[in-house]
């Protein structure tokens, strides 16, 4: 692990440059210890696959002291692991109405559309972190057979809830956005809601399972969400 200053308001901690579940576990454990320490000057703690960036409100006066403090937090023994992680069942409608690029992937990969849907909804994906847009989950675990290059001409508008494949990654657009990922379906679920105490239900270290649903089920869930009576299916990850 390395500790670096990043400007005069932030410290960057890096693990080996790998996408690896064990590194993620260590990253999240350290992040939770930093958050539990309740520093008055730290305003944001952002983790990615193999890094934590700690952002301070005031300028950092003595970087060596701060790094020393962080190192002792890393080594501190944590008796309980506070943050529970969940596996979220995310309904996705892979109907061609929403799966705008399913036909193209099917043609270029020589795969039946049904088997693309099966391969995409089979794995339990890991939420490595959230970035790009508010509520955009960086997921690990896409079947290699589904890796598919981004579109050379990004769409100017990808609708909220669209599920896409970009290279070796898969994810859901949490809001209308321009985007170059290949769209294979749409989820009726909201991934970011500023009215909620936790605007994004998922967090780093959680799991996601996609559940294939039809158009009727999709509309039904939309109505339930509008009435405020949609219940997420989730289970605790051990």
């Amino acid at each position, binding site marked *: 692990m390395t500790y670096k*200053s990043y400007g*005069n308001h932030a410290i960057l901690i890096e693990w080996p440059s790998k996408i690896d579940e064990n590194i993620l576990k260590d990253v999240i454990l350290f992040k939770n210890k930093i958050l539990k320490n309740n520093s008055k000057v730290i305003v944001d703690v952002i983790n*990615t696959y193999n890094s934590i960036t700690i952002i301070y409100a005031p300028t950092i006066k003595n970087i060596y002291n701060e790094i020393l403090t962080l190192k002792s937090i890393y080594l501190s023994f944590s008796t309980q692991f506070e943050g529970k992680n969940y596996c979220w069942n995310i309904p996705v409608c892979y109907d061609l109405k929403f799966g705008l690029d399913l036909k193209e992937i099917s043609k270029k990969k020589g795969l039946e559309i049904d088997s693309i849907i099966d391969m995409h909804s089979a794995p339990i994906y890991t939420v490595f972190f*959230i970035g790009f*847009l*508010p*509520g955009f989950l960086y997921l690990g675990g896409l079947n290699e057979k589904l890796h598919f290059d981004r579109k050379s001409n990004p769409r100017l508008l990808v609708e909220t809830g669209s599920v896409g494949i970009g290279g070796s990654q898969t994810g859901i657009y949490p809001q209308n956005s321009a985007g170059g990922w290949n769209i294979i379906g749409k989820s009726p679920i909201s991934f970011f809601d500023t009215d909620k105490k936790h*605007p*994004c239900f998922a967090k780093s270290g959680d799991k996601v399972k996609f559940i294939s649903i039809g158009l009727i089920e999709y509309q039904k869930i939309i109505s339930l969400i509008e009435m405020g009576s949609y219940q997420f299916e989730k289970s605790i990850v051990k």
Partner: protein
Amino acid sequence: MIKVLSSGFYNTIQDIGRFGYGDIGVPVSGAMDMYSAKLANHILRNKETDAVLEITLSKCKLLFDKQCIVCIAGANLSPKINDKDLPLNSVKVVNKGDVLTLDKPIYGVRSYLAVKGGFQTNVVLNSRSFYRGITDEYILKKDDVLPTKSIKTEMSNPLSSVKIDKGHFRAITLEAYRGPEYELLNKEQRAKLSETLFTISKDNSRMGYRLEELIANTFESMLTSAVLPGTVQLTPSGKLIVLMRDCQVTGGYPRILQLTDDAINKLAQKTTNHTFTFKLSF
């Protein structure tokens, strides 16, 4: 209340930014030139955290429908009240029915209108800063109404003003720290980075400024990691992007420099075709 008669091109309500939500992908936002925004609030003896209106190089016309105490700092966009010049960096009492216009740029790019007590638009996730997908409004539109506090005006001294250093708007060097990936640059790349006079391309916004000149990019792709306002990224094409207040929280390009707070504020007062050099500190 202030009614928007003419909205201009890209004008937004901003405060010191939105902190604590970076790990769910929420950008920091906040006034692009934080120095000038804070100055406008300071002159009015507002709180540093009060929201101001950021006006970017465009015509803008606002109608006051109650008495307000205001101050404009930052760029000089020829502000006028009812066609009479309004001095910058000064306290001014405006009356019900007065019209404020901003139009021709004299110096700088972003102007800040502060009102006594601060703009009272909705607080979303601890901040009033406009951002698409977070706040209901993300740019000012014609006929928008900006709520303000009711203020007793007798208390104020309408003559108080401060002198500012115009160097803030004319800086030709921007101070920067080494970024996390600076060490990967070779000798020639480092020399090029500190010697080149960089030009701001037309692709510049609250998210970031793309620069025209190229630095040969020899890096392998890196894993996505956190980025900050003021981070200078080296893209695969060799062009640099200086991230600004509305930047995403993570990015996948090498972070070769990190601007100082002062340099971010100074860059916010520059636009297309303006030039500058980076000056490495430490």
